[in-house]
């Protein structure tokens, strides 16, 4: 782990809170992001219109969809997959106006997929409020073969493309929504440091 200094590209996630100044609000959430959404609706609701797109995971332990239907006054749409949420998002974006505030809660890859869609409509990721929920598992891109491996929970992971053992760094590509992975045993092949779970 790199300690003692801050990698600038490493994203910062916060807890969702409503923006006071806005013309409307759109919240995108997935799976465990349901909890962030429930917390958000515990706060005083803003005056402006609110729309919520939620990707439900039927196999997850808690059924947030049911609770959300009770808690969210209107504008809630529940989908079965992340992909459907992103499609719905892409469809509404062209009809939206400046003053729309965007909120996203879910896995890291979901957050950055949303950010990529928004970017195509001139919204920078800094203008999206982001809450990371559920897992710290990292998506890693291999700097050697460019393959992207999902759900790595350890400091060192195997590249799904070239099979190299990659050290997972804090350098983050917003475009790819992935952390940089560098071959760990280049100097002395086969000699690996201890592999630990640090992104549960």
């Amino acid at each position: 782990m790199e300690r003692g200094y801050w990698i600038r590209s490493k994203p910062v996630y916060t807890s969702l809170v409503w923006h006071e100044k806005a013309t409307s609000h759109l919240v995108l959430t997935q799976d465990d992001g349901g909890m962030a959404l429930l917390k958000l609706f515990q706060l005083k609701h803003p005056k402006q219109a609110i729309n919520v797109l939620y990707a439900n995971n039927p196999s997850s332990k808690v059924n947030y969809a049911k609770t959300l239907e009770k808690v969210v006054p209107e504008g809630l749409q529940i989908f079965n997959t992340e992909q459907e949420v992103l499609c719905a998002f892409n469809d509404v974006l062209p009809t939206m106006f400046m003053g729309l505030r965007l909120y996203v809660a879910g896995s890291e890859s979901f957050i950055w997929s949303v950010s990529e869609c928004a970017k195509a409509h001139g919204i920078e990721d800094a203008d999206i409020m982001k809450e990371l929920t559920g897992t710290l598992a990292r998506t890693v891109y291999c700097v050697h073969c460019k393959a992207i491996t999902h759900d790595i929970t350890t400091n060192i992971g195997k590249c799904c493309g070239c099979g190299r053992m990659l050290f997972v760094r804090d350098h983050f590509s917003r475009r790819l929504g992935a952390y940089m992975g560098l071959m760990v045993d280049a100097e002395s092949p086969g000699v690996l440091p201890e592999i630990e779970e640090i992104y549960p």
Partner: protein
Amino acid sequence: MSTIDVKVAAIEQVTTLVKHFTFVKEDGSVLPAFSGGSHVVISLSIGGRVHRNPYSLMGSPEDTSAYHISVRRQERSRGGSVYMHDNVTVGMQFKITYPVNLFSLAKKARKHILIAGGIGITPFMSQIADLERLGADYELHYAFRAPEHGAFAEKLNKTCGNRLHCYIDSVGERLDLSVLLGNQPLGTHVYVCGPNAMVVSVLEVARNFGWPENHVHIEQFLAPPIGEPFKIQLARSNKEIQVPADMSMLEAIEAAGVEADFLCRGGACGRCELQVLETDGALLHHDHFLTDAEKASCKKIMPCVSRAKCERLLLDI
């Protein structure tokens, strides 16, 4: 700071208060390239004193054979604009800085809303050339006092067609910012250059509608205010100098032969920032750059526009 030698190739009276100057290189070669929204600082020596005034380049960035600026005559000012109007003639030679852009167009914007008040139209002239060339989506909202003051309305009408919206104060036409900023498509950026009241309202309306700060761009160069004379001490160059009432600290530092950094000379860019090492009085901050907390801390000052009320002000230069 390196400069370019230019001479005045043409002067045109655009309105009763606005003159347009064309500069070319003395040796006839092309001038450095620039992008829409850039400005240059021109050195004028008036009564034995050097004035350095920033002006927006208003020609098309595609044409580097000449630079174009427009100057509004400001009667109650320190004399730079009056000198430009009354004393500058074709053929005169000047030194100008290389163009710097502190008001550039946002490349990723889906739409651009340009808002100009009076002479604040100048930086938009070059931006419009860029927007037209890129085929970008934009609207220009141009407010001025009376028909005879719409310096470039006719020319703009030809270039912009129905993207141009004029608001003439004397016939009661007003720009309604709530309507304008209340329903713009996502990804729109707004740019404003004009009188302070206009800039402040744009900032406020945009903020109230929840526009992210980085979608709102302002160009507001202040003229250095006239004030009381005061004394400053320069630590590194080991000098004590007097700042006269009608000179800025930056000008006084330059006049003493000390080289200082600057870009806008109008309290907007932050380039001239100096560290305050010691003072026995009050700093009079006039810039738009420092935060309120920084101003209150008395540790930094922008010598291009700010002044002080003191006997001792030790600066790290």
